[in-house]
């Protein structure tokens, strides 16, 4: 039997109160910080998870920025190709009109030629569309224009502009200008120039109708490809939105406290502490001296 003295009782009481208070301080810290893992040693494995999840969250934020940037590129390309389609359709109409050799005076043909020149300039302007200073049809070239005055394409084959939208997934956000519009003497701009010249010279242009139709088909095909890229980007965006919510849920599960549980524990602990104080106060009080005269 261990002997009990006032000192051992006081020391035990003090130790128990200290332990109780420490436990309460820890619960309060958890409750106020809302974090289950305050230092890595609270849960080493959980810490590794939290670091990985937080890293994925920051990567997801970056993907979101990349997608926003890619969206800008693709919208610019989309608009430019839409406008190009309209322009080429107008050109087709003018060319068909100009092919009516017998019915048209030379003046009328000249007027059509001027109109087609204007359409060519408008088309060139669309082909030289830029987003944030970059030509969207010139790939990773940093030339100011995708097509020079001689219709030479300034881009490089295979050097496309890509945006990373998820781990290991990239989406192309530009269009190959050469595929859409051709280049140099075989470009659609040279074709339009040729039609205008033929009209002015009185050369029949009926043979050009198929060429214009061919160029229009080329632009429409490029537009369809861009549409597919756009869909891919949008799908990546919606996947990312879901992933962001999932990641936050995962992080919260790994790192955050169960508030209801902590508050309950805190209440229980506070009751325990008060009880301990109460008992200590009662136990330490009396000694034989209280009863001796």
């Amino acid at each position: 039997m261990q002997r009990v003295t006032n000192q051992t009782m006081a020391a035990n009481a003090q130790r128990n109160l200290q332990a109780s208070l420490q436990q309460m301080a820890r619960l309060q810290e958890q409750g106020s910080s809302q974090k289950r893992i305050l230092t890595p040693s609270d849960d080493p494995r959980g810490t590794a998870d939290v670091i990985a999840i937080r890293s994925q969250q920051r990567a997801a934020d970056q993907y979101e920025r990349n997608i926003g940037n890619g969206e800008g590129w693709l919208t610019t390309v989309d608009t430019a190709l839409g406008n190009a389609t309209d322009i080429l359709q107008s050109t087709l109409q003018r060319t068909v009109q100009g092919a009516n050799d017998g019915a048209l005076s030379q003046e009328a043909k000249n007027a059509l030629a001027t109109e087609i020149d204007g359409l060519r300039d408008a088309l060139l302007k669309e082909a030289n569309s830029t987003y944030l200073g970059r030509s969207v049809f010139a790939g990773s070239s940093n030339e100011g224009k995708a097509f020079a005055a001689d219709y030479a394409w300034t881009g490089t084959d295979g050097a496309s502009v890509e945006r990373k939208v998820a781990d290991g997934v990239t989406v192309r956000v530009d269009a190959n200008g050469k595929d859409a519009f051709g280049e140099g003497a075989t470009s659609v701009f040279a074709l339009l120039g040729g039609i205008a010249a033929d009209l002015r010279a009185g050369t029949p242009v009926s043979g050009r109708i198929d060429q214009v139709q061919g160029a229009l088909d080329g632009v429409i095909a490029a537009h369809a490809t861009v549409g597919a890229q756009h869909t891919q980007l949008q799908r990546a965006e919606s996947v990312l939105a879901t992933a962001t919510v999932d990641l936050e849920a995962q992080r919260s599960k790994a790192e955050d406290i169960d508030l209801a549980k902590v508050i309950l524990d805190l209440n229980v602990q506070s009751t325990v502490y008060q009880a301990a104080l109460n008992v200590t106060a009662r136990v330490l009080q009396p000694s034989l001296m209280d009863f001796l005269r």
Partner: protein
Amino acid sequence: MSTFSGLNTAYTGLTAARRGLDVVGQNIVNANVDGYTRQRVTLSSVPAVGNRFSTGAASGEGVNVDGIARLGNIMLDNQVRSTASAYGFANVRATSFAKLESSLREPGDEGLSARFDAFAGAWQDVANQPGEAAPAAVLINEAKALAGQIATGYNEAVGEWSRVRGDLDGLVAEVNSAAASVAELNAQIRKGTAQGVSVNELVDQRDRLAAGLAELTGASVRSGEDGMIDLVVDGNALVAGAKSSGLVAVGAPSMTGAASAGVHLEWAALPGTIVSTSGEAGGLVSLLASAADGGPIAKAAEQYNALAAKLASSVNELHAAGSTTGGATGLDFFAFTAGAPAATGLTVVPTSAAGIATGVAANGAADGSVAAGIAGLFGQPGSVSKDWSDYVTTFAASSKAATTTAKGAETAASNALGAQAAGASVDMDEENVNLLMYQQAYQASARVLSAVDEALDTLINRTGLVGR
């Protein structure tokens, strides 16, 4: 048996009761003195002395005060010392681990992992807009923040090493002065014992110092002659009777020299012999070990150096292969200051977009493939950021183990102290009972005295008066 021996018997009773009261008083007033061990008067009855003039049965001659016993228990004292030694060792380690752990700043937005992610993100923004000033400026700032954070982590490890080194010096001074005090008390105890004076209070003081030395160095106690004790550390005497030896802390004063000149303790009188201790000194020495010997602080610093070196080499390898929008190739992104540790010497080379290699020249000046490649270096298995998160996990596990050990040792130490206090501490109720007991004994002895007195009075003053 003399006629007056009854008076003397009563007198010895009075003396014994008074001494008992004195000792109770001493116990009560010292009840809260740290290390005080309760005392008891030891009494023995004095047997009858026969002489040739008296025959027949005779009563004893009273009570004798043999001495004042100190109610300590050597076994419990030993247990207190050995658990204190284990606790001292575990506690300094746990404290240091906790400090290093808080300098990791993980998990959270201030940790290195967040800096790695921000750095990778900045590279992607540069990949999206090669050659643009704004993302390049962000990247350069993020790179500097990353290098700065690695340097901060390293410096915190170095600072912790210096703190522990300073603690060791302070501890050695404390040990030496405590050992000298123990030797001095030993001398006083020897003298007191020889003179027959009670040395209980001196023994209390000395045992308290011995317990402190056990916590500091793991010194074990060997009983010596004349009530003295020897304190033994690593097989040699720190205190031998009235003589004490000194310890010195030898080795590099800062972490950079720790690998070549390891820190250890030596006897001041025997330079060159390593003293291996347990207790706090052992804990501190183990913390100061070089990384090769498993010192956690040096290892932490080495980890920061390794991170800096790997970061620079992996980024530079891709960066040098790429070209800037201006066409320059073979550029480094990170460089090291010569002569400084990798972690603190890491610097960022480019100052503007013109110095950042973003792509492959063949793909056009605005190619961002190299920048995207560098961004992809992070977060993959085997990458520098993964190294960091692995290190955090490993360190956290060791830190947790250190804390658990310290908690266990603390429980053992406090249990041993509790057991010691249970035997040695003063119980007020018990002392009050003793107080009553000795008080009653005093009153009763006084009554005996007056009874004998009255009997003698009858004999001396009232006999031979018949018929008067």
